[in-house]
C-alpha cells in the first residue's frame, strides 16, 4: 500500500520535473550540436558558442540588456524600499490602501497592458514636451522600473513585518532621530531583503520581452528582443547556445536570491529557538 503510493508520488514527481526541465535539457543539448540544422545531430561541438561570441550584434544586445538590468535593479530597489518602508512603518495615512493597491498592481497587470500604456505615455510625452525624443534604453529602463519596484516593495514589506518595531522604538528612545534610526537599525536589518530584491529586479529585467518590445525603438534591441526576432526567421543553433547561457545566468540569480531569503529565515528561526531555549532554563 505504502509502496504503491510512494511509487505513484514518485512518478508524478518525475513527470512534473520532466515537464518543466526536459525542454530546457533539449535546448542545452542541441546548443552543443555541430550541425547547422537544429534538429539534426551532427556531433558535439562548441562551434555555436564561438559564433555567438564573435557576433557584434549579440554583444551589443547583451551590453544593453545588462545596462538596463543594472540601472533598473538599482533604481527599483531604492524606490521599492521606500514604498515598502512607507507601507509597513508609516502607520495609517490617508490613501494608504489605495497606495498599497497601486504599488502591487503591476504584479498582476498583464504585461501587454503595461507595455501598451507605457508606450502611449511615452508617445504623448514626446509630443507634449519633446521627451523622450526616441525610444530606447531610457524608455525600456523606466518601463522595467515600474514593475520591478512592485516586487522589491513586497519583499521589503514582508521582511519588515518580521522585524519588531521595538528595535526602531528602542533606538529612538536612546536618542536616535528617525532618519538616524533608519540608517543605523532599519537598513542593516533590511540588507538581505534589499540584496534579494535587487537580484530579482535584475533578473526580471533581463528576462522581459513583452514590455521591452513595446517601448523599444529602432536599434535598441535587448537580448530577449534579439533572440525573438531571430527565432522568427527560423531555428538557429547559435540562439540555442545563447539561451543556454541565459538559463545559466538566470538560474544563478534566482538561486542566490532564494538562498539569501532562506538564510535570513533560518537566522530568524535560530534566534527564536535560542531565545526559547534560554528562557526555559539558563
Amino acid at each position, binding site marked *: 500500500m505504502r509502496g504503491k503510493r510512494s511509487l505513484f508520488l514518485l512518478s508524478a514527481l518525475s513527470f512534473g520535473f520532466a515537464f518543466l526541465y526536459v525542454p530546457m535539457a533539449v535546448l542545452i543539448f542541441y546548443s552543443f550540436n555541430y550541425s547547422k540544422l537544429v534538429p539534426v545531430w551532427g556531433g558535439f561541438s562548441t562551434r555555436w558558442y564561438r559564433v555567438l561570441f564573435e557576433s557584434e550584434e549579440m554583444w551589443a544586445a547583451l551590453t544593453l540588456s545588462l545596462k538596463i538590468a543594472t540601472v533598473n535593479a538599482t533604481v527599483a530597489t531604492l524606490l521599492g524600499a521606500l514604498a515598502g518602508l512607507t507601507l509597513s512603518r508609516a502607520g495609517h495615512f490617508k490613501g494608504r490602501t489605495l497606495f498599497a493597491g497601486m504599488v502591487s498592481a503591476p504584479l498582476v497587470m498583464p504585461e501587454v497592458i503595461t507595455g501598451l500604456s507605457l508606450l502611449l505615455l511615452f508617445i504623448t510625452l514626446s509630443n507634449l514636451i519633446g521627451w523622450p525624443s526616441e525610444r530606447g534604453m531610457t524608455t525600456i529602463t523606466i518601463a522595467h522600473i515600474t514593475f520591478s519596484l512592485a516586487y522589491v516593495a513586497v519583499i521589503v514589506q514582508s521582511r519588515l513585518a518580521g522585524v*519588531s518595531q*521595538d*528595535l526602531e*522604538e*528602542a*533606538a*529612538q*528612545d*536612546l*536618542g*536616535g*532621530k528617525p532618519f*538616524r534610526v533608519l540608517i*543605523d*537599525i532599519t537598513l*542593516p*536589518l533590511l540588507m538581505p531583503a534589499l540584496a534579494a530584491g535587487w537580484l530579482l529586479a535584475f533578473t526580471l529585467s533581463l528576462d522581459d520581452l513583452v514590455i521591452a518590445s513595446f517601448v523599444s525603438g529602432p536599434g535598441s534591441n535587448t537580448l530577449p528582443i534579439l533572440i525573438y526576432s531571430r527565432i522568427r526567421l527560423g531555428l538557429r543553433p547559435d540562439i540555442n547556445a545563447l539561451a543556454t547561457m541565459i538559463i545559466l545566468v538566470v538560474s544563478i540569480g534566482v538561486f542566490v536570491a532564494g538562498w539569501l531569503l532562506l538564510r535570513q529565515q533560518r537566522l530568524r528561526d*535560530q*534566534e527564536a529557538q*535560542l*531565545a526559547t531555549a*534560554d*528562557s*526555559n*532554563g*539558563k
Partner: protein
Amino acid sequence: MSHGANHMTQSEPNRRSEPLIKVKGIVKNFGAFTAVDNVDLEIYRGELFSILGASGCGKTTLLRILAGLESPSSGTVFVDGIDITNLPPYERPVNMMFQSYALFPHMTVAHNVAYGLKRDGVAKPELWKRVDEILDMVELSDLSKRKPHQLSGGQRQRVALARALVKQPKVLLLDEPLAALDKRLREQTQFELMRIQEQVGVTFVVVTHDQGEAMTLSDRIAVMDCGRFVQIGSPSRLYEFPKNRFIASFIGSVNMLAGQVVRCDGTLCTIYIPSHDSHFEVEHGEYLDKGAAIWLAVRPEKIRISQTSPTSDMPNQILGIVDDIAYTGNMSTYRVRTEAGDVLEVTHPNQSRAKDSQLVADWGDTAHLCWAPSDAVLFSE
C-alpha cells in the same frame, strides 16, 4: 469606599520636596477603546515605583506614554517640572527597557550599550569608559564582543538594562523586566535590580503583572485595573490596608465573609455573618451604619489555628474541620471547612521539624480558628 485604611495616618514614604514625574489626567484611546483612563501619578526622585496590574490593563500603554512612544489623547506629563508631553522620545530625559529587550541583533553587546551615548555625541574615550563601567556593573564585561543571539535570556536582560542605564536618564522605565526569565533567575535578578537601582540612584518605574515581584522590588506600588489606578501605596500599606475588595484579593490571598453591621462605635464594630450565624468583632476607625451590608476580610496568616479551644474571652472564633493541607516547606496552608460549609485558608509557619503527627492539625481533625479584632478589615460593597 475605603474603611479599614482611614484610621491610620496617611503613610507617606516620600516627603521629598517636588515629585520628579508628575502625570496629570492622562487618557489614551485606541478608537473607541480606552486603554488608559484619566490617570494621575506622582513619582519621587530615587524611588523604585511599580505599576501592577493584570494583562491588558494598560500598563505598557502608560509606560509608552511616559517614554514618548505613544502620545496621550489628553493629559500632561511633567518630568522635573518640565512639560514633556509633546517631546519626541529622542529628546526625553527618560529611557525605557523593553519587554522584548529590543537588542539590536546586528550589533555586539558593547555597541548596543554604546548606541545611546553615540547618539548623544559623547566623545570616544569617555564613551567607551562609560560602556566598560556599566558592563562591569552588570557583570557582562567578558561578553562585550558577543552578538545578542549568542546570549542567554538573563544575559540579554542585563544588556538591555545596561543599554538603558548608561545614558544616566532621570527616569528608567522597565516593562516587565523579569518576565522572560525563569523563576529562579527571576528571584536572583530582583535583588540584582534593587542593588543596581540603589547604586545608580536613578528613579525606576517598573511595570509588572507579578504581585510578588512588585512587593519585593518596590518602594511604592500603583495597582491598575481597566486603565485606572485603584490604589497607590507602599507594599505593606497595600497588603495590610487594602482600599477595597479588589486590592485585597489581588495582593496576596484573603478570606472573605459577607455580613451586616450590628453595632459600630467608631473604633469597634460588631458584624453579624449570617452563614455562620455568629458575631465577629473588628477594629474599624470609622462609623458604619447599622444594618449596612459589609465584607469582612482576613488574611490567612492572621488566623490562629489550634486543636484546643482558645479561651472563651477571645472574640472571632470559628470551629471547622481540616479539609486539606498544602505543605510548602517554610509553612503549611490549611484549608478548613467550617460548620457553615465555607472553606477558610489559614497559614501556619512550620517552626519545628515536626513529624506529621506533630502538625498543628491533621486531615480530618477539628480545628479552632480565631483572630484578633485588629487583624480583619471591612469593605462596604
